[in-house]
């Protein structure tokens, strides 16, 4: 007997939860590849597909939940709390900025078209660079400046890391963008009665 599938639209809290789970799992699983991470693109998608309070809830939840893992498991006690909290303020606000910009730039372009994904991917590049410039400044302020390093030195050292981050965004924007835009537009497949017209077609 063939399995009938129908599509069910997800309410915003469920889609937000799905993004948070994907972000936490992705960040932890990709931890060995520095700066390759899905959080930036998921933040953009949260602003773009969900908007409102979700634009802040999704990136902050992903970071907070995965940080609990990182700072209590592999990095326990490695960095002073003051440095971590200071840098975290820049990282969290950076993702919130990316999410709000995703909503601002993409909210009126939500159609199931290649063009939507192409624009999302293109916009992710300057947003990634802006995010890295902001967080590198935070890194300089809380970690590097006390060691005597200047801001230009920190930005010069940041270049290869930002290139990898741009690679990460280019990689994940079409993959996650297509996936979550499809879920947002059509819903998720669930077992159930096929629509009446589909039943008639098959007879």
């Amino acid at each position, binding site marked *: 007997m063939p399995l009938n599938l129908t599509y069910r639209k997800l309410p915003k809290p469920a889609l937000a939860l799905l993004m948070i789970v994907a972000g936490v799992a992705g960040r932890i699983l990709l931890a060995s590849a520095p700066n390759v991470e899905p959080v930036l693109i998921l933040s953009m998608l949260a602003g773009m597909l969900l908007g409102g309070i979700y634009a802040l809830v999704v990136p902050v939840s992903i970071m907070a939940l995965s940080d609990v893992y990182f700072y209590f498991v592999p990095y326990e006690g490695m*960095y002073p709390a003051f440095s971590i909290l200071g840098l975290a303020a820049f990282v969290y606000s950076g993702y919130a900025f990316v999410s709000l910009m995703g909503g601002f730039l993409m909210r009126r372009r939500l159609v199931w078209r*290649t063009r939507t994904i192409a624009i999302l991917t293109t916009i992710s590049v300057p947003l990634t660079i802006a995010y890295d410039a902001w967080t590198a400044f935070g890194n300089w302020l809380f970690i590097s400046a006390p060691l005597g390093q200047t801001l230009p030195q920190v930005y010069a050292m940041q270049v290869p890391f930002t290139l990898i981050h741009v690679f990460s965004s280019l990689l994940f924007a079409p993959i996650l963008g297509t996936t979550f835009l499809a879920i947002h537009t059509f819903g998720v497949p669930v077992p159930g009665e096929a629509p009446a017209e589909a039943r008639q077609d098959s007879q």
Partner: protein
Amino acid sequence: MRERTKALAFLGVWVLSLGLVLAAVAAVQPARPSPGAPLGADLVIRGEGWTIEYSPARTSNNTAFSLLREANVTFGFELDWVEYGWPYEDVFVTSINGTRNDGSRNLWWQYCVNGAYASQGALHQEVRDGDIVLWVFAPPGGAELCR
């Protein structure tokens, strides 16, 4: 243009842009020193209340880390490090002779060559004939800790 054609065109541009960014990443990474002629160098490891000195007559290990690794194998003291793969291809030393990095006291293993504080990863730092490599467990402090 039909949607399928647009999708294929986007796919092509996407793969090309990923390749270009990867090439740029590879281009900005410094090259690791290639093996050279055997050299003589001095290694000093300064922990909390202890010092290890190693002066091989000739060695082909010509980086700050490979010289430390040679001393580790020769003397048998404990050495622990974290490896970073592509594109960094370097190491972060976390423990020497039982003394482990301690973030709560801001004490870390760092190195200097001829009194100059490290400016790159220990696997990328070339050691030349007659150099003095110092590994020191101290708060990060630039040139001061290299004295």
